[in-house]
């Protein structure tokens, strides 16, 4: 699975960037509709849960994100290959 940031919820606090042990996130540079610089999932393939299904591990990002902005989505076939 891969983490996805919902741009309608993210407030650009960058806690995900700080907390991810695998450095999957990077700070954003584009301003969102809500006026924030959303973080970016730059390296989903580095995540502990990359290509994992069923019970996920780590999840520090999802649990820590104060805005419920990160959720898990299945990888595309292409992404799976990374």
């Amino acid at each position: 699975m891969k983490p996805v940031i919902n741009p309608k919820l993210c407030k650009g606090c960058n806690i995900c960037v700080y907390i991810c042990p695998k450095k999957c996130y990077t700070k954003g540079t584009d301003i969102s509709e809500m006026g924030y610089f959303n973080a970016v999932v730059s390296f989903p393939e580095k995540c502990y849960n990359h290509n994992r299904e069923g019970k996920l591990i780590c999840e520090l990002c999802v649990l820590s994100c104060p805005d419920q902005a990160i959720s898990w989505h299945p990888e595309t076939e292409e992404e799976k290959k990374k």
Partner: protein
Amino acid sequence: MDIFEFYRKDRWPHVFCPGCGNGTVMNCFFRAFNEAGLSLDNTVFVGGIGCSSRVPLYINSDALHTTHGRAIAFATGLKLAKPGLKVVVFTGDGDLGAIGGNHFINGCRRNVDMTVICINNNIYGMTGGQASITTPHDFQSTTTPYGNKEYPFDLAEIAVAAGANYVARWTTRQVHELTKSMKSALQKRGFALVEVVSQCPTNFGRRNKMADPSQMLEWFKSNTVRRDKAKSAELDHVDLNLAGQITVGEFVDRNRECYEELIGVEKHG
């Protein structure tokens, strides 16, 4: 249950500032509630007044958003009138420990069956950053422009001394441990307190050189000591200074009879 079945999606984005720990606490609580296998229909959420006390307004169940400091007193009446309900209180350091201090200690003593989640951000967030009873010594706030001269309370230790059945403290930097303690608290019979030391970047961090929420999380990480490993306070000197160390862990887990059992109220539940 999906997180947005548990929470009221139509109230999102919530009112909390970017990087506020309240949202983190909500994630963990949702998981714990789910894991404990509780049902929303049978659970009522009570809050006082403050940023932290607004969490109940976001949950997809009955919510009693009360007056400042009195959440435990309201919850006591609610629970005893309808003992079949699960009652969960969300509160803050100011709400629970300052204006609500008396209801807090008496709640622990009376040991009515309820789960209390106290989001302790060491500040009055809602009103713009005044010192609270947990603001560390010498830290800055709008009402302590020369540094806070008072020494803070240790809410978890007070709860233990006053008689609560379950007491744990974690920071928002320990999301997994926090989730686990929340689950234990939800499953405990009697008064159960989980204190979460949490970041208020807007009103605490900004005035104390930690404007970035991640700086606060890093501060939590480097000052956290497990309670069993904490340098034990000398008998003659209570170290009430949170700045030195944030003791975390389970403080107590016991089974004193809860008030409902003592007065036999459950019969009419």
